[in-house]
């Protein structure tokens, strides 16, 4: 399954508020750590390496050397 790039979240304003509110009481460093955990949790949920690779690219990340070498 390719990366879902069409709108897929019900109640987008509600979700966005929930995301922002979740970090309201956090200091910057804590919020950054939480973002990292969120990425890892969601990445594990997706699991599919092709979808994850596409998402990393979509987010503006460099093509990883690991992607070129494959999942050896």
């Amino acid at each position: 399954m390719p990366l879902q790039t069409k709108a897929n979240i019900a109640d987008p304003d509600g979700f966005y508020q929930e995301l922002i509110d979740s970090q309201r009481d956090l200091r910057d460093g804590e919020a950054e750590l939480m973002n990292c955990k969120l990425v890892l949790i969601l990445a594990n949920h997706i699991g599919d390496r092709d979808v994850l690779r596409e998402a990393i690219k979509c987010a503006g990340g460099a093509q990883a050397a690991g992607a070129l070498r494959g999942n050896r």
Partner: protein
Amino acid sequence: MLKTYEYPKFAYRQSDEQRTGKPRRHQAVVIGAGPIGLTAALDFARHGIETVVIDDSDTVSIGSRAVCYAKRPLEVWDRLGCGDRLVAKGVSWKAGKVFFRDRLSYQFDLLPEAGHKMPAMINLQQYYLEQYLIDEIARRDGVELRWKHKLLSLKQADDHAVLTVETPDGVFTMEADWVIACDGANSDTRRMVDAKFTGQFFQDRFLIADIVMKAEFPAERWFWFDPPFHRNQSALLHKQADDVWRLDFQLGWDADPEAEKMPEKIIPRVRAMLGDDREFELEWASIYQFACRRVDNFRYGRVLFAGDAAHQVSPFGARGANTGVSDIDNLAWKLKLVMDGDAPLALIDSYNEERAFAADDNLLNSTRSTDFITPKRPASRRFRDAVLELAEDNAFARPLVNSGRLSTPTPYLHSSLNTPDEAAFKGKMAPGTNCDDAPVSSDGRRGWFLNTIGDGFVVLTFGGAPAQREISFGNIKARVTVVGRDLIDAEGVLAERYDAQPGTTYLIRPDQHVAARWREFDPAKIQKALARAVAA
């Protein structure tokens, strides 16, 4: 001088060829009497290759250095006659704990399967390993160890190399059909042939301290990320023989290596780690930094590289010495067949093909561990810390924790020496893979599969009663071993690991790797695969 070990001093002797000034042509000259050079000498002796080892020192490894030895190299040393002694002296272990700050993040078990002669991993000071290898060499013919011999220069001819060597008696010349450079990460031999040695250098420093203490800690690998006693850095604790414990502290790039080596700097670090009440004595300490790189070709004319001289990895995962032993395991039989004219020179080039592939796999693993343990920028560090925090309660995050992926052999799955499968097989014994051990019996005695196959070509076939006792190609003979006749697989472990059905047949190389496998015993196919396995 250590408290638990006295370094032997090996006598320097002037060789006849130096005394007479008449160079001798040796079949093999090994440069460096470290774990890899000594393993080469032993394996060459097994194969009947006349060998001289030269080393510029006159003792064993100063300091415990490599410490961790994995199952496959233990199997190789067992083939060479000293596996039992190493295991008896070493500390076998299989469990590890990973701590993040003041909490246990998770623990792992190397989950060694039952039914292997050798344990998953032992810890043993490198000087014991070298001493035992030297003891074993003394019991063999055809190997000469020459101490206080330093290689000054090397010149290549078409079919041999000329070595200029310095001893306490001056400079002399020797010749070698083949030179095996096992002279470590700073290999002089590599410079002499102008080989490229490229890769990634890491800007970090680590302190290793060996201490002697009586402690009830279990024989486990304990690894800390950012512990309270050593903030923002990593630390490691490992048990060795003789109540010696290896401590490893990451120091960062700005640390002053000379100052950090002093007991007055080390002892407070150890006290912070173990508590003020713990009695210990400092045994040995060293500061290291590392790189991940490899030589561009394992063969330069008549010079072959092995061990750290060929590839340098980070220490995380115990991949240095372990993979070096596999280099020799791969090389020795090939060299013998080519020396005897039984296989073409191309077989030697398959050494580069297979071991460069393994080195790249090790480098990849080692670099990945290093990136996890020493994140290069704040953003990577946040991801690292996120993984460690999640790992405590979330099983999914634990496989992402990388405190070193412990050394396992790299199968040569794409090697040109393999004959591809025609039939479907389950399990992991694909062509190019090192053979799994299993309990078997032969001649009424219980023993181990790897001990029974030894170090020649073997055709292993399950059931049936083939008329042939061997399959040959030219002068190369593969002994036919029938499971059920020549060896008994009473527990069925061998059959399970090799996915055997009646008629299933394997061709096994002298380094105990699978070359080919079939569902039937077909002498013509076996002979063809044998030819292919020697690059003919």
